[in-house]
């Protein structure tokens, strides 16, 4: 072996040795074990802590509610949809409490009317559907029931019900002014509800001497357009505000 070759061999040896040494220290230990990546990274990702515990985790303590829930129409709506991520609560049941949304904003997230939602999905217009009333005062979220028809007047007279719901007369029941025979629900046109026949009926609240709240508008029945019954001019389901 001549001199050049042996020198070159030394130089090449040092270079390749340096490369391998650098590679040994710079390339992560598990790189290339499973592919062109650090195999240990899979375990790092897999070790993240879950915050959603899953539906099965609730039943051991809340078995009664879970059973009610699972036999009703919200069965595919898991607990954590409304109550939020539950893993922390399961680790410390007394310290960490989950949310139990009772306000009106929660349900319209799914059930508010939106034309983009699939046809047939139960929806209401939050602005007109019993405004200012909490959803849970009528509907049990763990055991919701679809509306039965005709459950109330609004089942058929929806337009009137919606109009009345946003009017000053919202708190009045339909039966306050209309006498409705049971037969009306069976044969609506053969048994029509009554309408107030006298001016004095409205006068119970709106006459000048009436014992009603001060904010309610009042007129003197004796001098105010005595030819007419009130509802001939004023539409009671949506009376003028002022």
């Amino acid at each position: 072996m001549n001199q050049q070759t042996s020198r070159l061999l030394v130089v090449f040896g040092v270079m390749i040795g340096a490369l391998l040494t650098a590679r040994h220290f710079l390339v992560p230990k598990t790189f290339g074990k499973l592919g062109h990546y650090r195999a240990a990274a899979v375990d790092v990702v897999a070790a993240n802590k879950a915050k959603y515990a899953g539906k099965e985790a609730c039943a051991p303590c809340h078995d009664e509610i879970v059973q009610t829930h699972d036999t009703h129409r919200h069965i595919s709506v898991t607990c954590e949809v409304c109550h939020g991520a539950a893993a922390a609560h399961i680790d410390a049941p007394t310290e960490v409490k989950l949310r139990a949304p009772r306000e009106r904003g929660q349900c319209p997230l799914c059930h508010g009317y939106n034309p983009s939602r699939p046809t047939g999905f139960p929806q209401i217009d939050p602005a007109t559907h019993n405004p200012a009333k909490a959803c849970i005062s009528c509907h049990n979220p763990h055991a919701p029931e679809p509306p039965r028809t005709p459950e109330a007047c609004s089942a058929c007279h929806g337009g009137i019900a919606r109009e009345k719901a946003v009017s000053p007369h919202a708190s009045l029941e339909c039966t306050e002014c209309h006498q409705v025979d049971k037969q009306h629900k069976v044969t609506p046109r053969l048994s029509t509800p009554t309408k107030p026949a006298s001016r004095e009926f409205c006068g119970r609240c709106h006459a000048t001497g009436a014992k009603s709240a001060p904010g309610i508008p009042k007129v003197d029945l004796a001098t105010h357009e005595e030819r007419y019954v009130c509802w001939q001019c004023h539409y009671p389901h949506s009376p003028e505000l002022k």
Partner: protein
Amino acid sequence: MRDSEMRLEPSEPTGRRAFLSKALPAFVPLVALLQSGRSEQSQKEAAKQGETRSYRASQHDYAMGVDPSRCIGCGQCAEACKTENDVPEEPFYFRTWIERYSVHSDRETVVSSPNGGIGGFPAVTERGVLRTFFVPKLCNQCANPPCVQVCPVGATFKTQDGVVLVDSSYCIGCRYCIQACPYGARFMHPVTHTAEKCTFCYHRIVKGHVPACVEVCPTQARIFGDLKERASPLMRFRRQNAVQVLKADLNTEPKVYYANLDGEVR
């Protein structure tokens, strides 16, 4: 012939072939030494991993089914995803989100996604809308992922169980993968400055849970399952529906299957 040449010039055994044939064997022990040390270590690590969990990644191939005709646009999935994976709250970071398509009668299609759908969508009020619907979107966990191909350091990869993950301790934040993803499923984390994406909630699925978005979807518009398990909800979903994938022409082989997808969805 060569022998005679060698004999003629004994003091000059040069030539590439001769050099390499002498030089290469010299490095074999060194390489072998280094390699043996590494493989021992990796074997130890593998054994340790086997102790902590009896999960066999090679026996799974995860995928998701999405039925847009069931999606009500409530945004629970996008919100749960942010909670589960500590995704920044700002409205431009999403691992999953909902898009609303409004197809107008003048053939224009408007796609909107206010805050990814978190908190719901305002009702469509404009006139002339032919049809309107929601489409949940997320990383398609491609079997042939462009993001993995372009990563210069091997920080993003496809696991044995078919999930595309990011090694955030190895990511150099070059954003190449964000450019490469045809589905817009990746973003740069504002704090760590590394690429972020949907992991199919990898930490959940290896423990047998479903991803957080699937867990909270109230209408079962999202179906999660294993392609290697025949009796899984996902396989039933694929049998029962006409399934499509997004941008099939790009040959990314997505593993998020959409049922009865509208032609306008991109």
